[in-house]
């Protein structure tokens, strides 16, 4: 594990050396997170992107919503919701799902502004997302596009936690079981009517709190157990 930490640290230093001045460099300069510490003590940031599709090569981020979790409390004072001004017209599909029209989006910020704020907020924290592959892929792609490099992001995926939990109990996983909405129902969490990046980020943060609360509270729960 120590080797792994070292190599992780080495990778970061390598990246830091070539990183351009700006947000990505600030992010990489923050202290490395101790993977053995109790998950309760870790600063987390729950993130959700709404995207125009599933392919980070072709599709783009429509909006980003995120909120901090500190010592088991979701802090709405940190809640952010940014719309990304599109370079191309929105496809009809995403309009239907996210109800974001070109008019709304044109009032948004540039991708660079949005990612820059996000990287600042994320420095020293672990990202939380539901089905984190999407967020990871789009964030990495955006960083490459904007800064030429992308940091590695430590991530907790609430969907993966749920999947492991169900598998360990030999529960058959049916279609839809792992959707945010259905998992929240399982933990008795309220239903949110709205479907947007910030609401989903808050919903994911609540789900993680419920998942952690249902684990053995007598033991220390090291962060690495949760990381992807």
């Amino acid at each position, binding site marked *: 594990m120590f080797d792994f930490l070292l190599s992780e640290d080495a990778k970061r230093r390598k990246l830091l050396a070539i990183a351009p001045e700006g947000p990505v460099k600030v992010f990489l300069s923050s202290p490395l997170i101790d993977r053995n510490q109790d998950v309760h003590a870790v600063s987390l940031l729950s993130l959700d992107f709404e995207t125009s599709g599933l392919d980070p090569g072709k599709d783009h981020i429509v909006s980003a*919503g995120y909120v901090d979790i500190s010592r088991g409390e*979701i802090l709405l004072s940190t*809640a952010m919701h940014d719309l990304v001004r599109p370079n191309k017209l929105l496809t009809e599909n995403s309009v239907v799902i996210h109800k974001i029209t070109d008019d709304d989006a044109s009032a948004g910020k540039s991708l660079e502004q949005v990612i820059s704020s996000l990287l600042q907020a994320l420095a020293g924290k672990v990202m939380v997302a539901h089905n984190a592959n999407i967020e990871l892929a789009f964030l990495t792609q955006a960083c490459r596009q904007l800064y030429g490099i992308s940091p590695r992001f430590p991530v907790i995926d609430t969907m993966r936690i749920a999947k492991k939990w169900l598998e360990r109990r030999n529960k058959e996983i049916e279609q839809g079981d792992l959707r945010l909405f259905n998992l929240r129902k399982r933990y008795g969490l*309220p239903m949110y*009517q709205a479907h947007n990046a910030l609401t989903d980020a808050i919903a994911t943060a*609540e789900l993680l*709190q419920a998942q952690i609360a249902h684990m053995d509270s007598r033991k220390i729960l090291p962060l690495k157990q949760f990381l992807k």
Partner: protein
Amino acid sequence: MEVELQEIRDFVALVPPFDLLPESELNLLVRKLGIRYIRRGKSLSEGGENTSSVFIIRQGSVSLYSEEDKLFGMLAEGDLSTAYCDEGGDEALDARATEDTLVYCISCDVLFDIVKKHPDAAAFLKDAPDRRLSDAVKSSQQKASQTATLMNTPLSDLISEELIDIDHESSIHDAAVKMTEHGVSSLLIMDSGNLSGILTDRDMRSRCLAIGLSADLPVNEIMTPDPVCVDSESLAFDALMMMTQKNIHHLPVIDGEKAIGIITATDLIRQEGKNSVHITRSIHRAESVESLTEISKLIPDLQLQIISTGGSAEHVGRAVTAVSSAITRRLIELAEKKYGPSPVPYAWIAAGSQARREQSSHSDQDNGLIISNEMKTEDEPWFSYLADFVCDGLDACGFVYCPGDAMAKNPQWRQTEKVWTRYYLGWINTPEPKSLMLSSIFFDIRVIAGNKKLLSNILQKVSTETKNNQLFLAHMTANALQHRTPLGFFRDFVLIDEGDHKNTLDLKHKGLVPIIDMARIYALAEGLEAVSTTERLEKAAGSPSLSKDGSANLLDAYELISRLRVEHQARQIRKGESADNFLSPKKLSRLERAHLKDAFKVVQTMQESLSQRYHAGHF
């Protein structure tokens, strides 16, 4: 404001006292919230950014525990817990999740800032629900007693006498005769149905006798034409001000265009005179059922008067019961006059609300006769006549027949001491539904007239059987728990959803009866002789059956619900409607609604703990 936080804001906006905040402030407030998930059994004080927080329950439920780890309250969705936000800081309360719970937390400092800006919120938040409840009861009593009676009594409440008037062409002599006949100091003078003037004692003196005017002249010669009038909906205080300003002592009272009576300065001053002492005195002098019936018509006014002078619901109960008991005694005296003295000793007993001294102007009658064991078969008719005379008389006086037939009129409840003892032991030893229903009537019992020893003999034997009789108490508890408070899981009132009383709350059966039932069980369990609900709760406080906190909370809840009920009835009586128990929550202020919910919550909690104590769920 992020439109995305709107759902959270909208939820918070419904939770008192935040419902008092303008939207702009709510938007700022939402930005200061934290969200936490509390596992079942965990305390709200564990973890989180800030331990001194107020909590809004978003989903789930939370139980409140006192210092001695006694459960004293439960919170559900939309409720607020200030358990960790006490400015005094000496109350060691603990709030624990009873199921997995999602809470919104706000730092106490943020709350204190809101409170500084919004005094209404301060009043609401001063204490946790149960303590808040106690304050609400106290302040409503204070408010009522601080406000002078004349300030809040409409004239229509004061002019009960019939209108005494005379035609404007009648002679002065006839007017004088009429005034003497009715014992009044003034007359209204009418011209073809319309008020044309007023005539007082003083007018007679100064405008007729002093100047030697003939008494045969028509009254319009000496009356004061077009007198100053006052509307029946005006407050007594306004009438007094008018009299003082114009230096007059009589004011015709009008309802729209129509004259309906006269109010005099003496009426206003003597307002306090119409009390229960006065009424009971006339009852003792009544010589017939008819005159008792007349007197009993004053009972609704009595109830009104007590409430408007700041009396509590308990005062109303005691005063009305004093009157009904005086009527019962007078009826018994009248019956003994009619049918001769009783052949053997007996006791006339009151059961139910009359025994508990909790009657209101429309209570029904529950009673019975305990007759000495010496009674012979040929004595039975005398008691049957007595019972019919008294029960019929009470019915005529507005204390209507008991729908369950629990009356001395029914031979079943007109029995010897021996039979009554057998009844009681039977109910205790075979607690089936019918006997439990009867127990709830006849375990509240008091002698109204006759030989008290007959009842105390029975109760002595019964009390040793009931005290700590777990099985009987468990059955009584299960029976009592059938009356549930009308509070839904989503902190809303569950209203009656059909029939004449659609969208109302039944304050009696859903609010008072559960408390009355519990008080009876505490009294039976502890072998207490107390019969009134408040006395039972006071005496049982600190016993194994009922904690001091529990007793105080129930007493507050009882007083609050009773008060809302008598006030509701007072409103109906003022409007000339007959009084009932069905209150629409829409008639309550938001604050009153919140207090009523708190009261129901206390009842729910206490029912829960009673049910646990006797495992009532198993029956």
